[in-house]
């Protein structure tokens, strides 16, 4: 059983300002809620994109009012072009897989509840934890930014198969800057999750309280632990 004295001293004190409490917080609970909020926003953006795609599939010639405001070239008169359909599909997949399905069950709930379930006061590396969220946040902003560059987001699908992703604008709208932003976003996202899972693994292995053997961990803690080993490798 690991020594109690290791985690008796809390290594950072309670925040005093609004910024350090709610924005750049070191508290794993606040970071968990921030992840949850990010996933919530991303989920509704992704769902909205799926609505646009579904409406286009069912009534292909019907204009969707206001869609031309999002992309004048992609949806002239509110009717989306086949290329723009692929662009929306790519963004739907990317947003949902990375920023909802990974972020919410793993990063959001894991951040909030893993330290509590093992009996720790916080994650062992709170600054890494804060960085993990903000890097993920920037990744999301970078991905969203590709909606607003001239050719729009990439159309290669969330798998980004070559050569569609590598030959530039000749492969279709969004295959220039859109692909670069997509790549940057996924790269940032992986860095963010790496920092988070480093914390998860260390918390599970080192910060368990007295009496909490590995086999006494709740199943959620096991799932998050296994998942973060996964992210690390």
């Amino acid at each position, binding site marked *: 059983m690991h020594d109690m004295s290791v985690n008796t001293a809390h290594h950072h004190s309670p925040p005093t300002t609004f910024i350090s409490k709610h924005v750049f917080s070191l508290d794993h609970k606040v970071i968990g809620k921030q992840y949850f909020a990010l996933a919530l926003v991303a989920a509704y953006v992704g769902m909205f994109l799926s609505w646009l795609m579904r409406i286009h599939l*069912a*009534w292909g010639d019907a204009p969707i009012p206001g869609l031309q405001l999002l992309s004048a070239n992609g949806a002239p008169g509110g009717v989306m072009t086949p290329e723009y359909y692929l662009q929306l599909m790519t963004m739907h997949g990317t947003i949902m897989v990375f920023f909802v399905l990974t972020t919410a*069950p793993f990063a959001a709930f894991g951040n909030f509840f893993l330290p509590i379930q093992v009996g720790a006061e916080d994650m062992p590396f709170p600054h890494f934890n804060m960085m993990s969220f903000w890097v993920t946040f920037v990744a999301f902003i970078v991905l969203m930014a590709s909606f607003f560059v001239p050719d729009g987001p990439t159309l290669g699908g969330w798998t980004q198969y070559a050569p569609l992703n590598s030959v530039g604008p000749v492969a279709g709208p969004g295959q220039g800057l859109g692909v670069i932003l997509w790549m940057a976003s996924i790269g940032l996202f992986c860095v963010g999750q790496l920092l988070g899972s480093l914390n998860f693994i260390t918390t599970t292995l080192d910060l368990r309280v007295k009496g*909490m053997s590995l086999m006494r961990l*709740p199943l*959620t803690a096991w*799932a998050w632990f296994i998942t973060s080993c996964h992210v690390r490798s």
Partner: protein
Amino acid sequence: MGGQMLPHSGGSTLLWQHLFWFFGHPEVYIAIVPGIGIVSHILLANMRRQMLSQRTLIYSMGALAILSYMVYGHHMFVSGMNPFSALAFSFPTLVITIPATIVVLIWTFSLYGSKLRINSASLFALGFISMFVSGGVSGFFLAQPSIDIMLHATYFVVGHFHLVMAVAAMFGIFAGTYFWFPKMAGRMMNEPLGKIHFWLSFVGAYCIFMPFHYLGMAGNVRRYAAFVDDYLQPLISVHRFITVAALITGFAQLIFLYNLIHSRFWGKPATDNPWEATSLEWSTATPPPFDNFGGKHPIVYHDPYQYNVQSSVGDYVMQTSPEQVKTEREEL
């Protein structure tokens, strides 16, 4: 592109697929494994008894994680890689269904005969199992190269992964939200709205994604933006049905959003342990103080899920309670 040859640039296109799926396949397991944990956690608190075998459940999750590195090639059966690789990737893909099936069987037989408490969280946990199984069954077909050649890149695949990975993980998120919201926000969520949200999402998800399998078998390739070919014309009515279902299911998610925001500010204040659950997060205050346990260090005396016991507080004993209780069986 557009009938023109592309200039060769960069590396091998096949290498990209290998690299992408070596990353991408484990990534989708990252999405589902926390869901498996969350669902087990929630079912345990609501069925008030232990899992058939906690240890096997943990090992199965570990096996899923490790095997997920060995199966990624099943995305590439038609990519032009060596046909023998298809066989080599097909085998572990079928093997990975074994831990997945074990997990589902443990859930099912632990649920069998239990007096499950029905609330939004446990309903979504059951929904997770349903989606995971329905989506998993089509995985058996796709895992075999000879069948996959027909179904590759059709709506069958889209239906498969949306059920098994997307909707299932989403249900895990919803279950976790209904279950943990009291601890995170200090207030309860609205139960009737949660149940309406569940039934609309559950029926809606099946109405959307089950017809996808039919579309795929009818030859509808995914990523088509319009249906200009003759053989696709009869399928448009199916697409219209799916769209209507998707719009309704989407509106159901707005109920969830309303419930979330409304409960955050005006919900009924939550007690420390509203679900009578045993793990450490329920032994601290609601919402937890800055250092989680208010300057104290909890000491753990029990296995995580001691339900169906006789104790001074009821049919459960918290992990942090020093009370000695008689258990049905020492499982761990």
